[in-house]
């Protein structure tokens, strides 16, 4: 589609970026590093996220699935997330000792012993349980190194307003995946929006996350990270992610 525009000689704001493909603009890298360092250095925060998962039906019909999530993090080892949306109602609890996924609609929960840090639990849930935790990419202490690995394109696209906040739009490319980050302007460089696009398939499916309601270092009662099962809730288990794919 972009090449069709270029052939027609129509100027789009991204055309200058296309000319610089496979170049890395240090200003974009620097702005991104400033954001990741800000998030990494927060002892705790809460944020709400609106996630849109792009899906493709067998017949090519595009369907977007929207999920709202609220995330509370206290470093080094506490995380609580609640997800609501298209057929999803879930709470995730992590307190440095155990992790629990609770489905309040079906009244079922699964609890497991957990790694000792947030980074450890994010790795464990993704690789062993197949669980996705909202904004996990940006929470890692070494988020900058992890995300910049193999990056071969970086650009400052321009200014945008996300949720009423002035933000700087950054775009990055690495093999098979593009990601875009919008960083709030000013002294508090928090992420406003995060888009990940799978460039390995021509469908170019994305996951779009818009973040808002940031609270830095909130006063959080430690009890919110501990799950107390309701009397009528049923304990179930996680299907191991790796073994489930071998069946």
């Amino acid at each position: 589609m972009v090449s069709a525009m270029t052939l027609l000689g129509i100027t789009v704001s991204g055309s200058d970026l296309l000319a610089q493909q496979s170049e890395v603009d240090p200003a974009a890298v620097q702005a991104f590093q400033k954001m990741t360092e800000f998030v990494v250095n927060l002892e705790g925060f809460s944020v709400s996220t609106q996630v849109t998962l792009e899906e493709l039906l067998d017949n090519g019909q595009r369907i977007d699935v929207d999920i709202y999530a609220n995330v509370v993090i206290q470093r080094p080892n506490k995380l609580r997330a609640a997800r609501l949306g298209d057929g999803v109602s879930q709470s995730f609890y992590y307190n440095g000792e155990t992790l629990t996924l609770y489905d309040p609609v079906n009244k079922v929960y699964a609890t497991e012993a957990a790694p000792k840090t947030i980074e450890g639990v994010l790795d464990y849930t993704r690789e062993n349980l197949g669980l996705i935790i909202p904004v996990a990419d940006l929470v890692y202490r070494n988020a900058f190194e992890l995300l910049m690995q193999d990056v071969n394109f970086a650009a400052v696209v321009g200014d945008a307003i996300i949720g009423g906040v002035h933000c700087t739009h950054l775009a990055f490319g690495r093999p098979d995946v593009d990601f875009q980050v919008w960083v709030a302007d000013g002294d508090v460089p928090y992420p406003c929006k995060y888009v990940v696009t799978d460039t390995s398939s021509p469908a170019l499916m994305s996951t779009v996350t818009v973040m808002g309601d940031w609270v830095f270092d909130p006063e959080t009662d430690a009890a919110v990270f501990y799950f107390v099962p309701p009397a009528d809730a049923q304990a179930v288990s996680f299907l191991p992610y790796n073994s489930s794919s071998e069946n």
Partner: protein
Amino acid sequence: MNIIKLTILAVVAGMAFFVDLSPATSPIPMEVQFVSEAQAIFGVRRRAIRRGVVVGYAAAEGAEAGAVAQQQAVTAEQQATTAQQQSATTQQQAATAQHENAVVTKAAAGALALGTVVATLPGGCTQMSSGGIEYYHCGADYYRAVFQGNNLVYVTASP
């Protein structure tokens, strides 16, 4: 003049979009006749390779492909069962409702191997508890609820 330019752009862009999409969608078979809407969409969700995270990107691919294959196998099995049930029902049109249930139960018997994952339980299940675990007894199969990633699914089990 501008309007003509825009129209051409819209048409060309539309065509480019169409061409872009077709290689991705054409190899995927349409298999929605025998599965309910919810199961069809669930199947597609597992089939569409989605990467919501950059971290762990390469590692996730193999596992996801495996899960997709598994889901496709389950869908095929469900379709076979449904087709069997439909033909059985057609043959037994004069039978009482009770008799029909018996026929369906028989058709489903032994259809699913232990460890088979389904998105939704079949109809007519009764709940029972054994060893602190809740089981759903549906026809000849027993299921228990499990989380597969963020999804609540049911896996055949032996109480």
